[in-house]
């Protein structure tokens, strides 16, 4: 057996999701190769060569791969996939966009968003917004799988010594053209890999009020998230959304502020180790899964919390 991991990166740095995916790959087999496809991405391959547990890195440096277009990447991944028993990618918008296209072209039924590996062909994955867990067995000869990154630790980025092999790009038809992007700048940790997350919901009442959460986040080294309601209302950008169809997070501490706790939101955070809920409605469903519930008006509670965090332990 052998496993190919499709790395996710921005041509400068590898994303943590890749490291989680390497750990999942190592649970399947110790023979793990990594694909680094991009443009001007040789530095990423160098960075990845020290990831523990990676045998070989395929570096493909070509302008066609600069923007992760699935139309361009899928012929390349398809050409490599047939040498492997498993091809893995993170269940991020990158992996979700790319891998099913490859799977269809290989006539493989992909397994999405796995949270546990039982054997080389049997996996656990959440369905119905995490309200059920399915154990599924694949009969395909090559298994294409996306990984729920919060369910697997990040592989160590030191101690590895993978060989880098440059390979050629695979011709692809010009079907799509990247026009631009608006990425949300943030000095805080990435939402999906942060140790602490503080999220706001509709109860925040405005985007400006999220500054209160940002101050707490800066004290705790936390990432800031939001419920769908807060994103729909325009308080914060789409990439803040935690939930069934947004980001899935599982930090050590999740603080839900002014979030009622719709099942679609719970689906994205209920595997957090410790959950705190602050809401003025004591009937809010979020309290049913919170380890620590505080029934309070967030506009008085959050400043009090900020002050309390400044006290000595």
């Amino acid at each position, binding site marked *: 057996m052998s496993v190919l991991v499709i790395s996710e990166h921005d041509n400068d740095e590898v994303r943590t999701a890749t490291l989680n995916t390497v750990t999942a790959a190592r649970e399947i087999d110790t023979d793990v190769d990594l694909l680094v496809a991009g443009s001007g991405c040789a530095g990423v391959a160098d960075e990845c060569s020290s990831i523990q547990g990676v045998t070989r890195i395929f570096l493909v440096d070509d302008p066609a791969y600069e*923007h992760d*277009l*699935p139309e361009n990447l*899928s012929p390349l991944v398809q050409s490599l996939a047939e040498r492997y028993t498993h091809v893995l990618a993170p269940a*991020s*918008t*990158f992996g979700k*966009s*790319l*891998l*099913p*296209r490859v*799977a*269809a072209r290989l006539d493989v*039924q*992909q397994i999405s*968003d796995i949270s546990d590996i039982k054997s080389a062909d*049997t996996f656990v994955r959440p*369905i*119905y*917004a*995490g*309200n*059920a*867990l*399915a*154990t*599924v*067995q694949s*009969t*395909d000869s090559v298994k294409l799988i996306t990984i729920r990154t919060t369910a697997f630790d990040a592989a160590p980025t030191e101690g590895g010594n993978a060989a880098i092999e440059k390979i050629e790009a695979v011709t692809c*038809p010009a*079907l*799509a*053209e*990247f*026009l*631009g*992007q*608006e*990425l949300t700048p943030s000095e805080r940790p990435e939402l*999906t890999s942060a140790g602490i997350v503080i999220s706001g919901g509709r109860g925040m009442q405005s985007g400006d009020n999220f500054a209160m959460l940002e101050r707490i986040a800066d004290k705790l080294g936390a990432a800031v998230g939001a419920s*769908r309601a807060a994103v729909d209302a325009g308080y914060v950008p*789409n*990439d803040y959304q935690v939930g*069934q*169809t947004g980001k899935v997070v599982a930090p*050590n501490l999740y603080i839900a502020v002014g979030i009622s706790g719709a099942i*679609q939101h719970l689906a994205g955070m209920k595997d957090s180790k*410790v959950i*705190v809920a602050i809401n003025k409605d004591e009937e809010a469903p979020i309290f049913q*899964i*919170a*380890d620590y*519930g*505080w029934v309070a008006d967030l506009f008085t509670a959050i400043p*009090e*919390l900020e002050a309390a*965090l400044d*006290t000595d332990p």
Partner: protein
Amino acid sequence: MKVLVPVKRVIDANIKVRVKSDQSGVELNNVKMAMNPFCEIAVEEAIRLKEAGAVEEIVLVTAGIRQSQETLRTGLAMGADRGILIETDEALEPLAVAKLLKVVVEREEPGLVLLGKQAIDGDNNQTGQMLAGLLNWSIGSFVSKLEVSNDSISVVREVDGGLEKVRLKSPAIVTVDLRLNEPRYASLPNIMKAKKKPIDVFTPEDLGVGVAPRVTVLKVVEPAARDAGVKVSSAAELVEKLRQEAKVI
């Protein structure tokens, strides 16, 4: 231009699902079913394109048991023109659905296929991408904005880092995200009118597509429940518990 909108019948999004006691799956008997919410957004977008004069005909297609026809009627009542039901009792996987849709696309020759980004039952998020792969068409997934011009479709995608703008060569596949639009409710007169709109029925065999599953579901269980927590009454108490008891800050 003709638009094809594949739709799926799923458990209503507001219903709490129950796992069957024999662990064979989720209870579907006597449970309220509805159109997958993301499919509703796709239908709505097709209707808005038609209202704006960019689209002449909206064809809905679904694959599943006979009752899936109700889901087609829902979309026809919203404003789609006609429906196609691919009737089967087999539990369809995304690859099988994509293969069925490929045949429908080849017959109908739409300029755009609009789908929901995922169905809220299996949460697979695969069908649109697979269909694009099988057809070797361009795709915009996770789309929150869409503009149609003569030979291309421009989309804004909601990606993990923010937003991304891509121009797709037509014909194209677009999978829609939550913030593309807010689907309308069907009016009573439109619900009545929808009963007379045509629905063609085929089987997978008619379309020459094998739909046998590739994945065996060994068991379906409920996730471990979280223990009930405690209430705190002040910031000082909360911080104390997080420091001393939970040891997370």
